């Protein structure tokens, strides 16, 4: 598409992504974290461990789960749900959003279906996940894919709707003929910022859905959280929540760096 401004990722992208480019902001952020942990510690002294475990107990639980290998196994298992679920849901969501928004005919045909299906929470589809895929990785990935689909569908639909009619006119006067050429050469690049915002939101939401998708017995981080909850092991619950947060942070920082690189043309 654009002249190659270089696919090289230098340290700057990562530093900006992490917010390390502004030391003052970083310092304040660190202050917030330390303050929160201290408050948490103070509060935990007044409560039994099954209501609010102390940060120290959580760190211990974290170390224990990590050392026993349970954590890495669970995380690997969840990643195997997250990657295909996110990938399939995002791809189909973007494709459907762009196609239905661009084509008046497809939009008319699908609008009632979309409005009917949209309010169905992914969790309500667990029965289908089990019936169609079984209690396995594919079933969990299916739940995640449904969540990713809708976020990306609406973001892409809106982004294509927002493409300026004037740019399409310019394209027509410059020889763009036919819908496919128009979509490829103008509609997609013009709506890319909105589409990528949807993808980024979806990547985060899919980590949340990992917990839900493992509720019916598929192993993973979500399963560990549910198991620990049932045993009132709140420190272990928090340890695994931290795992999800860290994964989210990692993916979000990486994606944001890609996003800034791809959208370098933006004002």
């Amino acid at each position, binding site marked *: 598409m654009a002249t190659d401004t270089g696919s090289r990722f230098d340290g700057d992208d990562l530093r900006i992504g992490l917010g390390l480019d502004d030391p003052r902001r970083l310092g304040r952020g660190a202050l917030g974290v330390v303050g929160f942990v201290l408050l948490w510690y103070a509060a935990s002294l007044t409560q039994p461990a099954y209501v609010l475990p102390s940060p120290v107990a959580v760190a211990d639980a974290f170390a224990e789960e990590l050392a026993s290998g349970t954590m890495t196994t669970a995380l690997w298992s969840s990643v195997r749900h997250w990657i295909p679920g996110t990938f399939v849901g995002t791809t189909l969501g973007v494709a459907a959003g762009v196609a239905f928004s661009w084509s008046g005919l497809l939009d008319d045909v699908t609008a009632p279906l979309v409005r009917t299906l949209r309010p169905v929470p992914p969790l309500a589809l667990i029965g289908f996940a089990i019936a169609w895929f079984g209690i396995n990785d594919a079933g969990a990935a299916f739940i995640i894919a449904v969540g990713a689909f809708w976020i990306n569908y609406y973001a892409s639909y809106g982004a294509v709707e927002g493409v300026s009619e*004037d740019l399409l006119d310019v394209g027509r006067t410059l020889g763009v*003929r036919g819908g496919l050429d128009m979509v490829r050469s103008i509609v997609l690049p013009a709506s890319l910022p909105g589409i990528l915002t949807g993808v980024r939101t979806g990547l985060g939401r899919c980590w949340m859905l990992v917990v839900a998708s493992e509720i019916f017995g598929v192993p993973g981080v979500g399963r560990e959280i549910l198991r620990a909850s049932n045993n009132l092991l709140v420190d272990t619950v928090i340890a695994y929540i931290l795992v999800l947060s860290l994964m989210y942070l990692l993916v979000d920082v990486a994606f944001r760096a890609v996003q800034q690189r791809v959208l370098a043309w933006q004002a």
Partner: protein
Amino acid sequence: MAGVNRSPGSESESGDGPDDAGVAVDRVGKTYDDGGSPVRALDDVSFDVEPGEFVCVVGPSGCGKTTLFRIIAGLTDATDGEIRLAGAPVTGPTTDMGVVFQEYHLFPWLTVAENVGFGLERSDRSEAERERRVEEMLDLVGLTEFRDSYPKSLSGGMKQRVAIARSLAVDPELLLMDEPFGAVDAQTREMLQRELLDVWASTGKTVLFVTHDVAEAVTLADRIVVMAADPGRVAEIVDVDVSRPRERGDPAFGEHVARVRELIGAMP
């Protein structure tokens, strides 16, 4: 009295437009009818533009200038009449016309050079030919050193130069412009006007230029089509008999401006 005035419509009675690169606007009418009472935006608009000629269309706001521009560009259908380019009826957008809009409408995700080359990608030219053409156009508008910049980093005047280069790259017969300098400051506007005249002189293109700025029209045009409103129609066609390069201080220039303003009625 400045200028020889032709009565509107008389030229196209014969029905055949000029053969090469000329434009015939032939009894064009446009009625907007969206449920309420129909609005007649244009009525019986006729004039010709000779090959290589520079014609400006001026008129008060609401006289249908932009509607006429869109109809000539093939972006809007006329209710009556037709547009002919080099004798052939215009039925839709065509790369035989280079169209320049007021708000530039550059593709923000493409660099300057890629914007200029956009139309060429759809032509049957070889890649080497396309690249040569892009360089030629960038040179023409003096933006060679900005070839790899994105539009966000350009000033309004530079953006409009890119838009002009982009529309000229496919080598159209006609350059069709809708208030192209309306969004830039006065100094930049005068500079762009001079540059456009240079481009016109060096390429020999036919130019049809819509503006509400009478002084701009007198600066640029061989002839000025003066429009009136309600419904939009041709009030008069004024020949601009002022030698080029034109100076605003020249009495003949002032007479033409006064004459056109009088035809339009009260206008800044």
